[in-house]
């Protein structure tokens, strides 16, 4: 009986491993470094658990022109976050791969005004993303095109 239970558990583990890793391979195509169309930032998308997050890893203008210090999230509505450096800030959060080259259920944060928008990501091809931030319904939003970047060895 004990042997039977152990075999059953092993089978369950294999199934969970399969579901946990294999089915998300497609979603992992999102992982990488991307650049918004403005060219002002580079964002690294990574996977934490089963969700995808994107953090700012490069800024065209890294320092605040007024203070000459590294830019911080000074427009965040949460006062306790206003001294957090923008470099390393997770501006894309909680994305889940929904199939058909689409990641949804996430949010995008705009440090320029401290607003967080609902967001959907569509992969047009392996090097191009369409990122749509919106308010409530997708019609009330704006789409930006992001390009995949490749890190060159120095």
């Amino acid at each position, binding site marked *: 009986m004990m042997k039977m239970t152990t075999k059953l558990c092993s089978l369950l583990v294999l199934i969970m491993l399969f579901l946990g890793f294999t089915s998300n391979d497609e979603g992992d195509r999102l992982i990488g470094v991307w650049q918004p169309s403005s060219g002002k930032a580079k964002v690294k998308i990574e996977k934490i658990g089963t969700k995808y997050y994107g953090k700012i*890893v490069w800024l065209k203008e890294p320092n605040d022109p007024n203070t000459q210090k590294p830019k911080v999230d000074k427009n965040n509505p949460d006062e306790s976050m206003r001294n957090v450096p923008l470099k390393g800030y997770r501006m894309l959060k909680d994305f889940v791969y929904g199939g058909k080259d689409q990641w949804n259920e996430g949010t995008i*944060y705009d440090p*320029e005004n401290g607003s967080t928008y609902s967001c959907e990501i569509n992969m047009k091809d392996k090097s191009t993303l369409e990122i749509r931030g919106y*308010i409530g319904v997708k019609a009330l939003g704006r789409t930006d095109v992001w390009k*995949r970047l490749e890190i060159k060895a120095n």
Partner: protein
Amino acid sequence: MKNLTLLIFLLGCTPLFAQTDSVNTSQEEEDFSMYENATPTDGKNITFCNPKIFDLSPARFVSIAWDHQLPYEMNLSSQGDYAKGTSINNYNESAKVNSTGGLRLFANIPVISSNKFLWQLGGNFWRTNYSFADVKGPINDTSLIQNISKNGLTTFGLNSTVFKPLNEKQFLLAQFAADLSGNYALDNPQGLRFLRYSASLLWGKRPNDRKQWAVGLTRTYRTGELNYVPILLFNWTAPSRTWGTEILFPARAHVRKNFNARSLLLGGYELDGQSYRIGGISTASNRELELRRGELRFRMEYQRQISGFIWGSIQAGYRYNFSYRADYTEKDGTDFFRGFVGKQQYAMINELSGALYFNVGIHLVSP
């Protein structure tokens, strides 16, 4: 074996248990310098200029506002043929206007909104109700006061805006609007032949995130009557990010004071007007009468975030009457162009004294 199974189970479930709460910052140490030389994999990285600059007052998707003018005097001539510059000594009608005001609804929804092309469609609905006291003059169907006191003035309009970035610095901006303005009742609107069309086309540059300018030409009814004028857009934010300008001359010009990302103050003026067909009024020449209302509003406006994407605004200022004259137009709705040099005569020469006014609104703002 049992322990091994448990270990494999725990390892296998790591992706599930590792779902963290939403975190804002990456905690691990990372060498960010490795991203300095990251370049596009397919060699293309086309950058287009954004329609906005830093710290502009937020664009509005939906707006609900109440506009209210405090007491002023209204003096109206009789109908006739008046040359430009004619001054009236004996007005045919006069009244004290206790208040003028009404609802102003506005919606502007993006149809296509990407970094390469922006197309918005919108609609607006404005009501202007008059409350008169101490009316003097004839009480008959030639009276303008009688005709506007019943239903007030209404504007229902549709508009379309296109922003086309040409490259990283240059852009084209086109706007088109069709407005149906008159003293019609909502359940009996006037014919579409009285639609009045406005349009603007601008070419401009956005040299950086703090400056945007454009020049162009507009066909406008902002002074009440049809005109074609050059137009200048100049939006600018100071390096300190606390001051700036929002100018679309001659329609409006404001200095902006940004307190933070969620509140700001605007001070300046706006030219606000429409051409209203006055239905039901008797005219000697069997033509239509159009009231050319143009107002110059000097004002201060405070805008602030209420919650999320809901913003509120309160505006107060002085309304100077630019035009309340009237013209005869054709029965088929055809309008005419007088411009700055045309010699066409006016059908009425009317005067409104200045008035204090306020406007309060609530808005759903755009990303």
